[in-house]
C-alpha cells in the first residue's frame, strides 16, 4: 500500500520516525513535505484525490491546521488522531483517508502505533456510508 506523508518543520522529526517505521512494515512511503503546512497538507490531499494513494498522514505541531485544511476538500475525511481508539475507529466508521498528528502531543512510539493502526484498518461500509454521502453533499 502506498502512503503519502508530509510535515512542516514542526512535524519533520516525527514524520521521519513514522515514515521509517511504516517503511519497515512494508508500506511504500511518499514524502510530500513542505515548509508551509497548507502546501504540505494539500500535497497529501492531491495524492489521495489523484488516486493511487489511499492513505495520508500530515504532521505539524498540534494536528489542528492539517485537519482544518484537509477536511475542507470535497471527498476528504481527516482525523486528528491522538490515541488508539480513534486511529482505528475512524477507518471503521468514517472511511478516513488522512490522519493529522501533532508532534507536540504524541511521542514517537505512540505516533507510529497510531499511524500503523490507521493504515491497516479497513472501512466497515454499510450503514456508515449514509454519513459519508451526507458529508459529500455538504461540500
Amino acid at each position: 500500500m502506498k502512503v503519502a506523508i508530509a510535515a512542516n518543520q514542526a512535524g519533520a522529526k516525527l514524520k521521519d520516525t513514522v515514515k521509517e517505521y511504516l517503511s519497515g512494515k512494508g508500506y511504500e512511503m511518499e514524502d510530500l513535505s513542505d515548509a508551509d503546512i497548507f502546501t504540505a497538507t494539500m500535497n497529501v490531499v492531491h495524492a489521495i484525490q489523484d488516486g493511487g494513494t489511499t492513505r495520508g498522514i500530515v504532521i505539524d505541531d498540534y494536528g489542528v491546521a492539517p485537519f482544518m485544511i484537509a477536511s475542507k476538500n470535497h471527498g476528504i475525511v481527516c482525523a486528528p488522531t491522538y490515541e488508539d481508539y480513534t486511529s482505528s475507529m475512524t477507518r471503521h466508521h468514517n472511511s478516513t483517508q488522512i490522519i493529522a498528528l501533532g508532534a507536540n502531543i504524541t511521542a514517537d512510539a505512540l505516533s507510529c502505533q497510531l499511524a500503523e493502526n490507521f493504515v491497516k484498518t479497513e472501512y466497515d461500509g454499510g450503514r456508515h456510508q449514509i454519513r459519508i454521502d451526507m458529508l459529500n453533499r455538504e461540500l
Partner: protein
Amino acid sequence: MKIAIGCDHIVTDIKIKAAEFLKKQGHEVIDVGTHDFIRTHYPIYGRKVGKLVATGEADLGVCICGTGIGINNAAQKVSGVRAACVTDVQTAVAAKENLNANVIGCGGRVVGIGTIEYILDAFLKAEYKPTPEKDALIAKIDAMIPENDCIENDHLFDECLKKWDEGFYHD
C-alpha cells in the same frame, strides 16, 4: 457567550453534561440535538452547529460524537467554520491562539466529562494571538470552500435520508 452544541446518538448523555457545564458558567447554550439515543447521523448536527457559527447566530460551537471525528468533519465542511477535535487542553488552546478556531470538539467515547470540562474552560478563556502569518493561513483556510448551498439549504440531506428509510444503507 452564545454557544451551539451538538452530538450524535452515541454521546447524548455526555453532550447534556457538557451543556450543563457551559450553562453553569453563564453561557447561553443552543442545543441542536440529537436529544435522545435513537440512531441518527452525525452530519445533521455537525452542519447545524457549523451553520449557527458561520452565520454568527452563535459565537462558538461544540461538537461531540463517539470519536468526535465524524461530527467535526461535518462542521468543518461548512464555510467559515474552523473546527478542532482534541483530547487535551494544550491542543484546544493552540487551536484558538493560532487558528482562531470557532468550533471545539472531542470524542465522548475517548475523553471523559472531566477532561471535556477542562478543554471547554480553557478553549473559552483562550484568545486568538494574531500575527501576519497566522492571519494569512486563516484567510487561506476560509477561502477554501467554493460557493455552495450548504448553509442555506436545510433539505441538503433529504435524498440520503430517503434512501436510508428505503433500506438502501444496510450492514
